[in-house]
């Protein structure tokens, strides 16, 4: 990803899951950008990237909702997304979804302005974090789409390693899917349950007290399963986690 000049302002795309279930994570993401001196704009017309419909085979429906996002984020400001999954959708699938339609050029330009949050913080802003928190041991969970679709692999870990009081332990099964997969968790509930059980066990084995991730879908799945089976670790979105460390909480 070529480093691009530092912009004065950015758009923030909140994602539908964060909007309704984890708004604090979205707010933290915007705060982190604001702390870097950027003007952060949250277009109120935004809704959802359209991924749920696309992945279930409803392409017209996905396009209709995606088109609304094309309208909601005009101009050429970068669009920062606190989710590797939605960022991956907008970066890689928008261009192909609109191929052969009048919106294609718009979709291509849009996709090139999309950045996953940690990618933007590291690659574009080059942030330096000062850790004011208590010593803590955590492990990282990358979402499949952030690793393999958005291509965000090193940036979140680079941020976490900047935090002097945070010990980041590697989960040997880190790259393995947690079993969320949107409708998959319901359609193939038993397989999904087996996958998340293994994920929870692998996180527990690391001895970390928190699992940090850049995607709320995975977090909802992993922490939901950990809570239900009374496992002793918490889940945090990386934006919230970092912001808290910077505030010493």
């Amino acid at each position, binding site marked *: 990803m070529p480093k691009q000049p530092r912009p004065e302002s950015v758009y*923030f795309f909140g994602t539908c899951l964060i909007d309704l279930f984890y708004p604090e994570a979205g707010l933290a993401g915007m705060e982190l950008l604001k702390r870097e001196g950027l003007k952060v*704009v949250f277009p109120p017309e*935004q809704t959802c990237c359209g991924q749920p419909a696309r992945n*279930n085979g409803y392409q017209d429906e996905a396009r209709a909702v995606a088109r609304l996002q094309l309208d909601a984020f005009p101009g050429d400001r970068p669009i920062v997304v606190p989710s590797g999954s939605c960022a991956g959708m907008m970066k890689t699938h928008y261009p192909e979804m609109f191929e052969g339609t009048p919106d294609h050029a718009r979709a291509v330009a849009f996709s090139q302005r999309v950045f996953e949050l940690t990618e933007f913080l590291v690659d574009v802003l080059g942030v330096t974090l000062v850790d004011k928190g208590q010593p803590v041991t955590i492990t990282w969970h990358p979402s499949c789409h952030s690793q393999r679709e958005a291509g965000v692999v090193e940036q979140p870990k680079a941020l976490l390693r900047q935090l002097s009081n945070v010990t980041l332990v590697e989960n040997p099964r880190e790259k393995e899917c947690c*079993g969320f997969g949107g409708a*998959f968790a319901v359609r193939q509930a038993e397989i999904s*349950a087996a996958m998340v059980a293994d994920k929870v066990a692998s996180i527990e084995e690391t001895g970390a007290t928190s699992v940090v991730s850049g995607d709320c879908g995975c977090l909802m799945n992993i922490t939901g399963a950990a809570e239900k089976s009374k496992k002793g670790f918490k889940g945090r979105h990386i934006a919230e986690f970092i912001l808290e460390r910077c505030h010493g909480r």
Partner: protein
Amino acid sequence: MVADAHKMEFGAKAHVALNDPKLRANFRRAMDGLMTKRAAQFADTGEWTSLRARGAAIRANALAKLPELLEQLEANCLRNGIHVHWAETTAEANAIVLGILEAAGARTVIKGKSMVTEEMHLNAHLEKNGITPVESDLGEYIIQLAGEAPSHIVMPCIHKNKGEIAELFHDKIEGQPYTENVDELTAAARKALRGAFAGADAGISGVNFAVAETGTLVLIENEGNGRLSTTLPPLHIAVTGIEKVLEKLDDVPPLLSLLPRSATGQPITTYVNMISSPRKDGEKDGPKAVHLVLLDNGRSRVHGDTELRDTLRCIRCAACMNHCPVYTRVGGHTYTFTYPGPIGKLLTPQLEGIDCAGDQPHASTLCRACADVCPVQIPIPDLLVRLRTESVRPAAPGAVKGAGSMASSSETMGWKGWTLLYGSPLIYRIGTKMLGWFGNLMPSSAPMLKQWTSVRTKPKFAPKSLHELAREKGFCDE
């Protein structure tokens, strides 16, 4: 109705597999080992990137010219003295093979490992007609003894552990004492197979690559049994899907580098057999007659769609299944059909029809682990989404058999509602507010939520949405 029966079957089989600790452990151990060995082979990412791009290009090129290459292959095989047969369906292919065997008066057949003959259920067809096929690949031999189908396309009996095989041999091979000593078990199989090799009237094998330029059949294997089955008996019948053709001999080495390394993590395969003709005058070994059966079974229909065509690039290395979080947990038999795992989820609905196997493309989180390791860059998750789309598009004029057969009015309505909610800022604002109010009141036993909460806590809607918080904090103003 048919779709429902299979749906039940996949779900029911997954349920059984998930609750079989031995099977789970066997798969986990085996797949972890294979993933580690493969990763070591491609530690040099630069070499991996360029080699797989080459592999993908070679396969894509062959598919782009498929009709011409098949004609060229036929012409060159004929010139080399290899008989060529075309089969539109598996029934036709079975009849052709049986016909050749009957004409030669063959009673026993020794078989090399071949997935396409599994696709045809050839063994059952031969047995029904009084011909005894004996599988010579150790893994295939084991599952034949057990009366099972392969659970993996490279290691057909990966679902069994040593103890289970020891028991099976003790049960099925006369005079075989119970032993878990691998050398002794292998020796027992070898002894049993030696007799079969010596006495077989014909050998049947698959084909890894068929080279159009030279009319050569390339077959790779590790045990030497493939070589024996294709040289010892007087008659050799090779069976292959029409997509396995390559343009030229130079295309073979890159694929021979990619295939075993992706499959088992071996640097090279132990045996490479190149069959270019029957035994010639003065030659001491080799079959007197060689036949090639080219099976379509829906492949040309897949080929007709330029996007889905990428499915046919597959070189059957199994890397996608070794890395698939679903396959690893449910094992190959859950998939019901011949090809399991990610490539099976793509291939089966296309060959058999969405009305038959339409649930399989949904048995994926689209995690892309398969696409990451596929040596010929098949965009498996994107094609799964394409099949999901085909499955609910009513009467799409596409290349896919049974398209539209999974469409249900309630699901369609659901997505219409979703589009209404997410497709308009105003409805979204009002709708999500109401969702937040009512959502938290919903009991965990509500439809859909029930599946989720069976192993997880219920997600809670936040008191205020990010939209509201962003407005309060002044992020919404330009």
